């Protein structure tokens, strides 16, 4: 894996294949239809918000989200981080942290006063640690679920 300066830029439709590749390394499955749908969604909503991290011309991480407000009893404009992934071969090099910093700055530019995300305490302990290190705290808002 090439090592160079990591830069951030907005995600584009040309990143779909790279993101598929990173996702496949993480989850072990090739999911092109899923990423085609998702990337098109984020491009439609706000193409300058979601970011990829690039090193030597190769996408090594991504973070996708959007700004919403008026849901779940939360009237304030909030940023939501919905998806992220870092190439496992690039872990430990602050790619995730750089992406988080970039996204927080983007959310702030768009008037968000808080940023939220959802993490599973059982299956995403590492991710929990990542967000806590980034200044995120648990909130009184509970996730409720009804299985169908």
């Amino acid at each position, binding site marked *: 894996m090439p090592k160079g300066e990591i830069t951030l830029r*907005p995600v*584009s*439709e*040309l990143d*779909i*294949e790279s993101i598929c*590749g990173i996702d*496949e390394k993480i989850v072990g499955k*090739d999911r*092109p*239809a899923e990423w*085609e749908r998702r*990337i*098109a969604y984020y*491009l*439609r*909503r*706000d*193409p*300058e918000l979601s970011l990829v991290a690039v090193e030597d011309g190769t996408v090594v991480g991504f973070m996708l989200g959007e700004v919403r407000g008026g849901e779940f009893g939360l009237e304030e404009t909030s940023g939501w981080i919905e998806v992220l992934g870092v190439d496992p071969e690039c872990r430990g090099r602050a790619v995730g942290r750089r992406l988080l910093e970039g996204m927080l700055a983007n959310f702030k*530019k*768009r*008037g968000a006063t808080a940023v939220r995300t959802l993490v599973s305490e059982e299956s995403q302990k590492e991710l929990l640690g990542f967000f806590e290190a980034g200044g995120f705290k648990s909130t009184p808002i509970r996730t409720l679920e009804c299985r169908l």
Partner: protein
Amino acid sequence: MENVRSSTLPKKYHDAVVRWGQTFLPDYQLLLDNWEKFFPHDRRHELCAYRQCGMCDTIEVGDMAGKPKFERASEMTPDHASHLLKAIKAQASTELGSIQQHQLTLARAPEEQDQFWVLRMMAEELRHGYQMFSLLLEDDWKAVSDTKGEDMVEEVLQMRTGSHVLGAFNVDFDSFVDNIVFCALIDRVGKYQLAMQKVSAYKPMSESMPPMLQEEAFHLATGVVPIRRWVQSAARGEGYVGMDLLQKIINKWYPRGLDMFGDERGGGSNVRMGLKPMKNGEAAAQYTAEVEQLIGDLNLRYVRARFPDISRQEAQERLALIRDEGEAVEGVTRDDLLRLPHPSFFRRRGIYAYQMLDLDGKPVQDLEEYKKLMLRVLPEAYATARDTTKYFDLMRQVLAGEVKAQDAVHILPNLSRVGGVCPCSRAVRWVVDEPTSGNGHG
């Protein structure tokens, strides 16, 4: 969109654009009626002009870098104004021209989602044309130009396929695959032009670009996502769009995309005047690199779909063997994959204009041989259409010395329409003066 102010054109011009839309974008209301179904929670489309606030106030490139941007046309020299008006007219023409093209084959979309994505894209192109009209109408160009903004608006509204400024917008669509490949390849050129115009020394132009660029991002996805899906279906032997058809349509549009950048040697005056940050050749080279990446990703997708049980690494290795070494792997050959023609192929502008060069950029000696080649590598409907026959006729004239290649560049296909979308839309002014309030006579 944050930090953006919106405005509408004076009523008679706004109404003219609405009327134009009713003729050339008749499904506009259908789009709005189905907005929540296909674009839930997205900001609803509005026909208005947007200006980004808080942009850079100083000229960013060229001889006047560092000086304040021009806020009004009267602050420019006539030469500046002339370059700028050409760009605004070309931009407006491309926006409306593309709508006329897309409308021809919109109804043939095999998937409803793809159809509504294209329809949304068309509505946003209409807004982009409207945006350019706002630049023409909200400033007084008389001090620096013989052109009146309102006359240019009417002129662009009158344009039809065959009379638009740039060649790519005078080519008919023959199938919905044209709609999609056009979004992937030609809107991509549009993205470059908009990104370059973002640094325009004319502040209203630079402020117009960010909202247009945001909308353009989805237009590119409107092209790339269906092509990815079609490539995967083709690999599995399913679906209706084969790799051969996709290749022929890429061969049709990629050269027109390159032509849109203008002569590779040109663009220097735009950079000097602070209107764009790079010359034509540099921008075209970056565009080609992007399209090459797209083709590479599509080919990888093809191999993965064809061999679903191998890993990504193995698929990349197989692709390299097939594409770069020319080997056949389990029945897949180089001919099964997509490729980008050489940049010199089928060009009508620039250093390769009106040269008989094949897909690899190698010369073809004989016009009849060249025609046979083109019939093989272009989509059948297009290869036998008026645009192509006009091209062959001009090529014959260039070869015979009757016309110089540099003059052939300026001869538009100028297709005269037989019939049309609506008989009343020909040779009728779109902008209608409001009736003055009467005093009861008559």
